[in-house]
């Protein structure tokens, strides 16, 4: 079997962490290009066409948020953001700017690898068309026919509940921020009305989860957003 040869771009100014990331990723047969500054990173992203970017938000030259915004003007390359804990607002901003996922330091390399895999898989899977069908565990969703099943049982959803769920399905496995969900489901005028989201998310959980207080599918990322469980891969 041909080894994976995705090029991963790491933008991280701490040399030890850079070394750790490079070593870990190379051992998984990825090609790795590690850079120290945002400026270098932006140039490399343009010329080397990496498959994925790992970006530390605290860079010596330009702010990580700025790197994301500039990159998103011309590139859809998946971005994983590394951030310190307790900086949910920064994470949220990065995600709203267009980052795809985040990890807080200190992070486990196992989780990093699984996130990278998931993102690369998503890129491979989307040659244009939206997905028709989603399944994770007992949860089955037929998107075009707008039908939802838990096990064999069909679940009736209201239009808003279904829109919310399908927005999560579009990003299955990845975190979607409160703002993104509010904007997509209720429109730009409702981005501050986070209670809408809580109430409908609560309703969805009560309909889809066996135990709403210990959800399997509709996972809360406190302070950031929601993540739909994608199943064991």
């Amino acid at each position: 079997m041909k080894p994976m040869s995705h090029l991963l771009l790491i933008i991280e100014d701490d040399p030890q962490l850079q070394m750790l990331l490079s070593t870990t990723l190379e051992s998984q047969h990825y090609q790795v290009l590690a850079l120290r500054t945002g400026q270098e990173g932006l140039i490399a992203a343009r010329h080397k066409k990496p498959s994925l970017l790992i970006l530390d938000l605290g860079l010596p030259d330009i702010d990580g948020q700025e790197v994301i915004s500039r990159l998103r003007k011309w590139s859809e390359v998946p971005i994983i953001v590394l951030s310190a804990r307790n900086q949910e607002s920064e994470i949220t901003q990065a995600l709203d700017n267009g980052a795809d996922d985040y990890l807080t330091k200190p992070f486990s390399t196992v989780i990093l690898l699984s996130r990278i895999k998931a993102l690369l898989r998503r890129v491979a899977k989307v040659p244009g068309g939206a997905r028709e069908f989603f399944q994770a565990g007992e949860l089955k969703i037929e998107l075009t026919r707008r039908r939802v099943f838990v096990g064999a049982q069909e679940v009736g959803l209201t239009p808003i509940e279904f829109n919310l769920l399908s927005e999560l399905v579009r990003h299955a496995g990845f975190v979607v921020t409160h703002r993104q969900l509010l904007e997509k489901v209720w429109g730009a005028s409702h981005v501050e009305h986070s209670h809408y989201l809580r109430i409908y998310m609560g309703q969805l959980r009560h309909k889809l989860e066996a135990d709403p207080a210990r959800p399997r599918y509709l996972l809360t990322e406190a302070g950031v957003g929601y993540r739909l469980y994608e199943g064991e891969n």
Partner: protein
Amino acid sequence: MQHRPAPNIYLLGDDRGPTLRFTAKLADNHSICQRAEHKYGYLLSGIVIPLLLTLIDWPFREILTSSNILMFYLLGVFFVAIRFGFWPSVLASLTNAAAFAYFFAPPIFSFAITDPENLVGLAVTMVVGTVTSKLAENVRQQARVAEHRERRASSLYQLSKELAEAHLETEIIEIGVRHIHAEFGGQNTFLFPDRNGKLCYPNEPPLDISLHGTDLGVARWVFNNGQIAGNGTDNFASEAVVYIPLNGSTGTIGVLALYPVDLLRIFLLEQRQLLDTYVNQIVHTLERANSAEQAKEATLKMQAETLRNSLLSSISHDLRNPLATIIGAACTLEMDEERLDEGSRRKLVAVISEESQRMSDLTIKILEMARLEAGEVVLNRQWYAPEEIIGSALRRLDKKIASRQVNIHMADHLALIHIDAVLLQQVMVNLLDNADKYSPAGLPIDISVQTTPLGLSIAVADRGPGIPEGLQNKIFDKFFRVNAESAQSGVGLGLPICRAIVEAHGGEIQATNRSGGGTMVQLHLPILEYPPTVDPEEKELMQ
């Protein structure tokens, strides 16, 4: 006729100081015009009341002797004296004399008096009437003075009472501005020096009775010289505003700028003394508040010092051990020249991983506590469903407590609560982590969430050994550990962090021993706002 309320100015006592002389002319004008207004009304009584008495007496003129009639008139004079003052009563005496002579003393319907007895009676009555009127007038005056003094005392009492209850500088100043406005009738404001010792405009938003447009130059002169200036004084007399220095025990601490509606209400001696008393009261209260503030700061500093010491000793203990292990294991691996077997190498790597995880946890807790202590944390309150907090906390501990039975007792559809979800999730993680750490494997953890009349209550309970009696409050102190030598114990910051977060939400947290064994930590979060409503969606389901 429009009646203005009587002014609050009385000349009290005889001690006319220089300030009073300075405004004496003003005072005279003032009081004359005030008196004149009353005079017409009051003087009328000096005519009306005798005429009334004459009407009443007329039918009894045959029965009553003339001395009886004179007595009646005298009564009338007393009444006028007590009710309306001296001059109306003098007028009443004169009217009486005329009426008596004309209607009662023979010959009737003539002002002539033939009987010498009547003449003497009338003269005596007039003298007695005038003297008693004068006495009554004095009594009246004294009553007015007493009443005014009492009012003044009560306004001072009101001021001191309010000041005694004030603790913040802004409160004290607000009270000062209000009372000075009420008593002296002018817009006013207090000016204090900034950090560089230069007088500046206040930062607080002004009250509607605050004075605007003061002249900082004059105010600074007053501040530096400690002398009164502005309108009605010898310094900067062309100013419209009066600037009064606030003299404290350590020199001038600020300046009161007062726009006088009436100079008399400030510069009459009694008023001036009253104003001084007001200013002194306010200055003393400000000084008291400042020294209380300083004492509090000193205590806080001392507490911070103690905290730093215990933090250092705790950190050195809790971080050194894992560090020693990590460095040791890493060195052994580094030096390894293929002499270690595969099993030993794996063991060393596992030790490094485990110990660094422990260090990471400790560091995160220490940083979190420091952040909370520093007051750096601003609550990012959002509406959250209580079940989401529990759910996300459980997920963060997923691996750790996977083998444990966790029972959740929670009503469906609890109301949303306005909280900082990230911090509250931290509280739940710490509590669940403790419950897991301090109770034997295999025993369940119970979480219960319920709404109370006052808010939301969340309890996490285990079936561990419980907390020794008397230590239930201690466990929320920083770096306190029930069993410090135990290998499982952390740095002693988990519960203090919980308490800091819960208290930042205005709630409280406490630990109790459960009946049947185990510990229960319960937190109460007050509901400060009711959840907003959501436009109802058409409830029909999609088919």
